[in-house]
């Protein structure tokens, strides 16, 4: 089994437009998606990320506020799952409720085993 990182981007505007009931139902679908992964033993971890952050750049280690990107580019959270292939990982990602939104993006990245 390999590990895959899923990065969540976008969906901000549509989420903001939802009614409280819709939001509630939407959150439950996230919960259900992750619980299913848990039951299958494929869930490693996941966390939502705060919208603000800091960026440190270069050998001068310059700290600035940010990243300030457009809503659809900022990473809103991540999930790490276990899968054997990209296809499997994509199938998992397909279940992500973020993709109910037109501008929801799930980036799927395989964790790379380093050969030392």
């Amino acid at each position, binding site marked *: 089994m390999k590990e895959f990182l899923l990065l969540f981007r976008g969906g901000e505007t549509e989420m903001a437009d939802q009614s409280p009931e819709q939001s509630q139902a939407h959150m*439950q679908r*996230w*919960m259900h998606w*992750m*619980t299913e992964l*848990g*039951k*299958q*033993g494929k*869930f*490693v*971890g*996941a*966390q*939502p990320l705060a919208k603000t952050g800091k960026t440190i750049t270069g050998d001068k280690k310059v700290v600035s506020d940010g990243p300030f990107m457009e809503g659809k580019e900022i990473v809103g*959270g991540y*999930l790490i799952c276990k899968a054997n292939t990209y296809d499997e990982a994509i199938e998992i990602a397909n279940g992500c409720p973020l993709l109910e939104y037109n501008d929801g993006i799930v980036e799927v990245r395989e964790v790379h085993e380093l050969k030392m």
Partner: protein
Amino acid sequence: MSSLNEPVQQLADHLFRNESKKMVSVLTKIFGIENLEAAEDVVQDTLLQAMNVWKLKGIPNNPSGWLFRVAKNKAIDVIRRNKYSVQFDFSDNEKILLTSEYTLAATMENFWKEEFIKDDLLRMMFACCHPEISKENQITLMLKTLCGFSTAEIAKAFLTNEGTVSKRLYRTKEFFRQHKIKLVIPSIDEIKNRTDSVLNAIYLLFNEGYNSTNSEELIRKNVIAEAMMLCKLLTENDHTQQPEVFALMALMCFHSARSDSRLTAEGEIILLPMQDRKKWNSRLIDQGNEYMNKAAFGNIVSAYHIEAAIAYEHCSAKFFKDTNWKRILEYYEWLCSISPSPINELNKNVAFMELYGAEKALKELQLINNKKKLETYYLYHSLLGEIYSRIHNLSAAKEHFETAMRLTHSETERNLLKNKILVLLN
């Protein structure tokens, strides 16, 4: 809590005892039994918060809902603090969801569902009565975790000091920490034996409350109530509905039905012949009967069945003189054959004495094997005292009553024996 008024205080005490056993069981399931301490801390903090808030605002409409909600939030804090701690094991497919902020609250909520709590209580009982824990430690742990007793209350019940109780609890918790015992309902092969251990512990607990040989009050009603409540849980759970469970429940109903007639207002013992049978709780006797009926299945008659049948003979006799001693003696003979013990032999002898008189009873008593063990037992001397007083050997009677007084730990028993000596001398 002293500033709440009296009826509110009682409701809160009862509620706290009841709900804390549920909360501890669920929390221990979530944190793992190696973190029992953390579970107890959450419960303690929750009850403390309840006391402080309810003092000002009164008891809420749904008090247990309130307690659970507060406990859940505190549990979430504990999880957040211990997400990466080696002490906490999140490797379970459901528990791993506790480590993600996405799923922490909802997963926590799920663990606390009503439908899961009864099984959690059962798992907790089995854990407390783990075969590698000594009998004393089993009861101590059950009283602490499942019955909501403080170390001070436990010390009082066993006439020991808080330090000893704390040490027992510490050692038991160390055992859980080292062996990472899983909280499970035992498998089909094991469940009969494990349930027997639990019944044994419950019966020991009940006897502590009923006879209180080790404390100043003869009847510790709270201990009795807790023992019966724990057994009732077993009667209600599919996994543990064995005949012995119902038989023990019946036995405890019959015994506790007589509670109110066993002591005077001043706390002195009233013996069976003198008890006011109008004070016997007929509702409990009826309940005992129902449980006896439910116990009548399977092909094994346990000691609990027979003891319950004997207790029933007493409960159903309208007056002491109506007691069916012949049948009781037959039951004791049966009991002694399946469960030989000094106490059973002594009780059989009492029945024998009632039926055939003191002289014959004395002869019977002298036939018992293993008298060395009996001689350290206060009831043996108390019985001999009674026998000798009935055959008018006053000096032997006095001697045995005095020996009994030296051997008993109970102040109330000592007073009873003192009075018997006084009666002799008159």
